[in-house]
Structure formats: C-alpha cells, structure tokens
C-alpha cells in the first residue's frame, strides 16, 4: 500500500516536471525577445527539472540521497535567478532592445535621467 502511494507521488511529480519543462521550451520558442524568453526559461525550466530531482530523491527512500537531491534543488532555485539577472543586465547594457510590443523600459529611462543629471 505504502509502495503504491509512494509510486503515485513520484509519478505525479515526474509528469508535473515534464509539463513544466515543456511549457518553458514552448515559451522559449514563442516569446518575442530575449528578456521574455529568459523569464520563461529561468522560472518554469528550473521548477521542472527541480521537481524531477526531488522525485528522484523521494524514490530512493534513503535520507542521505534525499538530502543530496534536496541540496541540488535548492542550488538550482538559488542560481537560476542570479544567472538570468546577470544575463539580462549584460544584454540591456550591451544594447539589446526590448520587443516592440513592450510598453515600459524603466532601466533605460533611469539611465537617461542619470545621463541628463550629469
């Protein structure tokens, strides 16, 4: 009985992770510019692969392996926003513009204000 419940939990986590990863890839293909693509990849993609790692940790039924998988999950969740922010900042500073449909670019506005003040 416990075996079945555990298998069900792991299966649900696996399928949910797969759906998250698939939606992230769909966002990467369909969204209009690099900043919106980054937002799809770094949130949905991280949650998807993190869920799968978590499922692998639960499936092992060993506290040492589960803690390792949990540490990996925490590491991904911590590093994905940092990497995405670094890349977005670098791309914006290098001059890659937002897509035409976007309405507000507060970073460019504040840079212009600073340039005017000087």
């Amino acid at each position: 009985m416990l075996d079945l419940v555990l298998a069900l939990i792991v299966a649900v986590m696996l399928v949910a992770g797969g759906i998250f990863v698939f939606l992230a890839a769909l966002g990467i293909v369909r969204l209009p510019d690099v900043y919106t693509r980054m937002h799809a990849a770094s949130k949905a993609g991280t949650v998807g692969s993190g869920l799968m790692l978590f499922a692998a940790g639960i499936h092992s039924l060993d506290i040492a392996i589960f803690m390792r998988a949990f540490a990996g999950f925490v590491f991904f969740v911590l590093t994905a926003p940092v990497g995405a922010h670094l890349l977005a900042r670098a791309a914006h500073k290098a001059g890659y513009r937002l897509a035409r449909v976007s309405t507000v670019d507060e970073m460019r506005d504040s840079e212009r204000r600073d340039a005017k003040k000087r």
Partner: protein
Amino acid sequence: MGAETILSAASTLALGLMCVAFFLTAWRVIRGPTLPDRIVALDMLVAIAIGFIAVIAIRTGFNLYIDIAIALGLVGFLATVAFARFVLSHGMSEDGEDPALVPDRPQRGKGRRKGRAR
C-alpha cells in the same frame, strides 16, 4: 496496476515531454537571432539535461546519477555567468543579427563600434 507500472508509464511520459522540449530549445539555439537568445537556450538545455538525468536515475535505480546532476548544474551556472560577462565586455556584435534588434542609440562604455555609419 502495480507501482512498477505507474512509475514506468510516468517516466516514459516525462521522457517524451522532455524530448519535445529539448528539440524546441535546440531549435532556438540554432535559430536565435541574437547571442543572448542562444545563451538563454543553452541554459535551458542544461536544465533539461538535469531533468533527463533525474528520470534515468529513477528508471534504473542507480542513485549516483543525482550527484552527476548536481555537478552539471554547477557547470551550467558557471557557463551562464561567463557568457554574461562576455556579453557585457564585448558589447553587441552587429554582423548576422536581426536588424530590427539593433539599437538606435550610440553605444557607451567599452562597447566596440564596428564602423557602421548611421
């Protein structure tokens, strides 16, 4: 329906979803109009590979794969940071990119200008 059947079906479904996601992301790496697009897609490919490794760990019951996933996540984060530094220091490369994305403002800082008169 036993636990084995549920797990096998769920992991097969997750592997299929991730295969589709992998090919969509690879299409963005090949197609991507700008360098940051490709970097975001490569970061996503690392996340998908981590998901693959986790599912294979569940299917084979070989728990050492989780450590490999953690190591891959470390390498992927470092690669993203290094690419972001590269974009920041190198500026926009103007050849072979979508002309709609080339900015109308002059580049500042260390960004190299490749002598295109505007």
